[in-house]
Structures are given as structure tokens and as C-alpha cells.
């Protein structure tokens, strides 16, 4: 496990809530994405999730579907993703970077070298949305030999027994996918209880993706989870664009960061 992932674990153990923000690579073009990543880093996110767009984003909601549809037109290949990761890493050596995508995008060429390239570029972990544990054996091996751990997802349908197996394999943060591109699948108390139980079985930080759009919602999430993953509210903000989009992005993330930090040391 690399230092940046270690740092996340340490912060989580210290009850310092974590913030992960997702961006779609190439929405609207690659240079803008690098700028946006910088804004996130400056505003203090712990992890940037860089979504590599896929034409068939079956497990994303309408906002991220639209963002990916725009980004697909940029025709990004893995060399470009590596470049942007490397560039980001040069400027922000301590902010963790997760690259995420659908499996098919990793099958266009031998997958091992793609993973190695990402690792060398400074990517800390890889999240493949449509690769459940049982189907992951081969990717697990490649991930191990490339030194690029996989982000594992859990959800309301994950049993405790299954969670323990997932946790056992996890070498990187775990993500609670608590809304399925729209509705929340568990709310309030049930969500908190489940997160608490799961938390007892892993040292990896658990980020919860819960369709968060405001600082207050983010704060509520980190009452129960180690961190919050914010995705579509950012894509929605970028979709509006206009001259002051960067400033609005900065303010949104700063607000998320501030409200999340209010929970520090609690719980």
C-alpha cells in the first residue's frame, strides 16, 4: 500500500472525515479536466476520482451519463489518461488519485500494461464498476503485479459475510454505493447501522456515495462513513459552465470540505 492510501487509513482511524470528489475525464475536454482536478486538490479533497468515460454507463445516473456522453466525444485513450494522471501527480504529490471505469475499456489492449502505466503515472487505485469480486480473479492478479490496488464496492445488498470477504481482499478504500444512480437504497438509521457494522470488519476507509449535493448532506454522510464520495453534483455544476464555472467549483468543494470537517473527531 502506498503512502497516500496509508495516509487515508490513518486519517480515518483518527476520525478525520474524508472527502472524495469525482470528475469525468474529458468533460468537456482534457485540459479543463486537469484544471478542475487542480481546483479539487487546492480546495482540500483527500481523493480525486477520475472517471474514464464509457459509452454505456449503466450504473450511473442521468447527470453522469450526460457527462460521459460529452466526454466520449473526446476519444481519450489510456496514454492520455496516464498523461493527465502524471501531470496531476507532479503538481499534487499528496492527493490520492483513483481512476474508475467500466471493464470493457480495459479490454481493448492487454490489461496488465494498462494497469502498470496507470500505476507509474501516480494513480493510487483503480475502480472497475462492473467487476464484482467473483469475476475479478484475473484482474486481481494483474492489479497485484502492477501494484495498483482495486477499489471495492459494497452496497445495501451486500451481506455481512460477503462484506468480510470483500474487506479481506481490499487493498484500497472501499466504496459504499448507496444510491443506484438515483434513489437511495438505504436511508437514515439503517444506513448508519450497516456502515457501523461493516466498519468493524475493515481498516480500509469506507467512502459512501449517496447522491450528495450539499455540504449538509455530506456532513450527514460522514456521521456514519469514513468519507463521502461526491460525483454527480459536480458534474451537474460543470454542465452549466459559464465564465465563472471554476470559481463555483472551488466554492462548492470548499463548502463540502468545511462541512465535512465539522464532524472531525466525533462519533
Amino acid at each position, binding site marked *: 500500500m502506498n503512502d497516500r492510501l496509508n495516509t487515508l487509513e490513518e486519517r480515518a482511524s483518527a476520525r478525520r472525515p474524508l472527502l472524495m470528489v469525482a470528475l469525468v475525464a474529458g468533460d468537456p475536454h482534457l485540459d479543463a479536466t486537469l484544471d478542475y482536478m487542480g481546483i479539487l486538490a487546492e480546495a482540500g479533497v483527500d481523493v480525486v476520482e477520475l472517471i474514464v468515460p464509457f459509452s454505456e454507463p*449503466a450504473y450511473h445516473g442521468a447527470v453522469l*451519463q450526460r457527462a460521459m456522453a460529452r466526454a466520449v466525444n473526446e476519444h481519450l485513450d489510456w496514454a492520455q489518461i496516464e498523461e493527465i494522471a502524471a501531470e496531476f501527480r507532479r503538481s499534487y504529490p499528496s492527493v490520492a488519485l483513483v481512476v474508475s471505469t*467500466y471493464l*470493457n*475499456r480495459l*479490454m481493448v489492449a492487454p490489461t496488465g500494461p494498462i494497469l502498470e502505466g496507470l500505476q507509474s503515472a501516480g494513480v493510487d487505485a483503480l475502480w472497475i464498476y462492473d467487476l464484482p469480486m467473483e469475476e475479478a480473479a484475473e*484482474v486481481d492478479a494483474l492489479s497485484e503485479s502492477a501494484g495498483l490496488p482495486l477499489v471495492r464496492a459494497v*452496497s445495501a445488498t*451486500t451481506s455481512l459475510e460477503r462484506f468480510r470477504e470483500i474487506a479481506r481482499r481490499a487493498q484500497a478504500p472501499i466504496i459504499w454505493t448507496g444510491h443506484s444512480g438515483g434513489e437511495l437504497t438505504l436511508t437514515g438509521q439503517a444506513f448508519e447501522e450497516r456502515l457501523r457494522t461493516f466498519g468493524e470488519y475493515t481498516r480500509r476507509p469506507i467512502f459512501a456515495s449517496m447522491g450528495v449535493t450539499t455540504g449538509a448532506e455530506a456532513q450527514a454522510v460522514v456521521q456514519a462513513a469514513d468519507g463521502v464520495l461526491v460525483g454527480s453534483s459536480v458534474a451537474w455544476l460543470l454542465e452549466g459552465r459559464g465564465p465563472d464555472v471554476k470559481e463555483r467549483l472551488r466554492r462548492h468543494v470548499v463548502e463540502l470540505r468545511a462541512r465535512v470537517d465539522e464532524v472531525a473527531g466525533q462519533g
Partner: protein
Amino acid sequence: MGSPACGAFGEFGGRFVAEALWSPLAEVAEVFEEALGDPSFAARVHGWAEQRLGRPTPLSHLGGLSEALGGAQIWLKREDLLSGGSFCGVVALTQALVAVRLGRTELVGETATGDFGVALGQVGLALGLKVRVFMTRDDMAAEPAAVRRMEEMGLALEPVEGPARGRRGAMAEALRYVACGPERAFYVTSSLASPDPYPRMVAFGAEIIGNECARQLRERGVSADYVVAPVGSGGFACGLFGAFVQEGSVPGVQLVGVQSGGDASPTKGAASLVRGRVGVHMGTRSFVLQDELGQVVTPLTDAAGMAMPVVGPQHARWMRTGQVQYVELADAEAYAAVRTLARSEGILACLESGYGLAYALRLAPTLPEDAHVVVGLSGDGSRDLGRLARARGEGASS
């Protein structure tokens, strides 16, 4: 990357889904496997198929057309005779009975042409289940009669917004709905290209068609030399081929899956097995029409049922093993074949079936009179009448 772990067909298949869907689908797989071991389940499926769906469909010998072509005898497996596509019926039925076995109370599925939505209503309501159908707004506008029919049945119809992507968009929404309430909602699909256990379940339902066909051929004292079927996502063809593909069981029969080559320009069309590459899409590892970056390409073909960028994993395996031969034919040839059949034998097949027919029309004259070519007609052509008239107007093929 190599073979999937679950529901594998050689190196193809698998259950490539988000974590939220894994356990619900695993539970479905478990109950389905258990049902397969229970003779009363098969009896229920066959009883309902016969008493409620009107199976078997006939096998028709085309004496006139065969003679006119001057070669092999042409036989049609007549799924066009049952309204709304009987393939949809058996496929919905099998899954609905698994849902009942699991104690689920709501069937949830997607539909593009509306046929599968209607089939879900037919079997779901009969079994006392609620039925929810996801359909994109574009598809709803294109199929007003099917929408009205589902409304009359009182189905919960869910219009899907967002970038119009036909069945795929609706499928994503349906799966997402199921992930939110897996203890009551049961996902049902007509697509062979789907995560495990759906390819197995779709095939189990559709194989009724092939089993009937094999039995009917035996009863008529005929042994087929060729069995030809259209392949979109491939459910119908998989069902028809199922009874013939086992090595040894029917020796000497050549199986041919015919895909749509669209307007015959090489980068378009829907021939996933001819022009696709191995990938993972719609939850399964199979042949996918995609660009060099791994983005899925939307096929361009006039035949609604053929416009699928990914094919069921069974076909991917059969292509690898050589058990089935896959070819593509242009839309114009399918139109011409539909018209030839209508004028010679009074049978109006759907455009989708036209690809298989067109292949048979080419093949038959090259064979002796005692050879037998079976063509699977997957449905009736009412829906394609407008397209046929336009194609004729454009002089595409008359």
C-alpha cells in the same frame, strides 16, 4: 482477460454487474438451478406454455417455394403465428415462474418494441404478479399500439429519459430499480446478452422452440441439413439451435446464425460476431461492436430486433468452437426475402427473420431436392409493413 467465473460458456458469459446487483442475481441463479432440478418446474413451464401461450407453433413445409427455387426443401418454424412474438412469451414465462418460486411479487423488465413488455403483462398478471416495464420515451413514441396495450393491462409503465439508447438505457433503469428493492422486485429480460443467470434462463425458455422443432422434424421423418436463424442478441437463435447443437444428438446438421450487415458498409451493421471484438457489455463477456477505444458502437440496421451491439455468450462460444457458422447479410437482402416469402407463400415474416430467410433463399438452390433447410421465423411482420413499403419505394430490392 480470460473466462468468467459465473455462468460461463467457455470463456464467455459471466455476471459483470455492479456490486448492488450481485447478490440479487446470485439468489436468482441459485433458485433457477434448484428449479432445473425439480421436474415439477419444467412441467409447470410446459403446461403454461401450452395452455396459456398457445405452443407448440407449427413447422411448415414450403412446397411451392422449394419447387420454385429448384433445390432443397424449405421448412419454417413458425413463431410468426403467435401474436406478439412467442419467443418473448416463453422467455417471460420461464423467468416469471422463477420469480414466483423466489416469492417475488413484482416483475420488472425493459422493452424496446413493446413486445416483451406485453409478454411480461401476459404472464405476470396471469400469475398474480405486479408488472413494471421500463421503456425509453423514443421507443414509446415509436410504438403507440404496444404502449396502449400495456396501459389496458394496467402495467406500471416507466418512461426512461436521458440519451436515447433503446433497450440498453431501459435495461439500466430496470436493473437500478431492482437493486433498490430486491426483496420484492424480480428482473426479467428478453436479452440473451445479459448477466448470469439470465443467458441461461432465456435459453431455457427459448429452447422450447428448438425442442419442438426437432420433435416435429422427427414426426415428419425429416432430418435437417441446415437450421438457420437470425441473430441479434441471439435469444431466438439460441433456443432454436439448442436442440441441434449437442454433438452427436443430431449429427450432420449445419447451424447458421445470420446477422444484419445494415446497409452493407463495413463499419456499420449489427454483425457483432462477424465484426465485433471480445468485450464486456450488458453484464456479459461476449462479442461487442466497439471502436478501438472500447466504446460501444450503435449498430445501424432497419430491423429493430437486430440492432444489438452485443450478442449472447452462447453464440460467442459456438462461434469459437465452430459449432455454428455466423454470417452477415445486408438489410436490402432481408427485405427482398420477406417479400419473396409473402408473395410465394402468403406468410409475412418480420424483417428480422428476413436475414435467415435470405440466407436460405441463397442456399436452397445449391442443394439437392432431398436436402432440408429449416428457417426460424421469429415473428410476424405487421410492425415492418411501413418499412417494407418504403424500401420498395426506394427500389432497394424489388
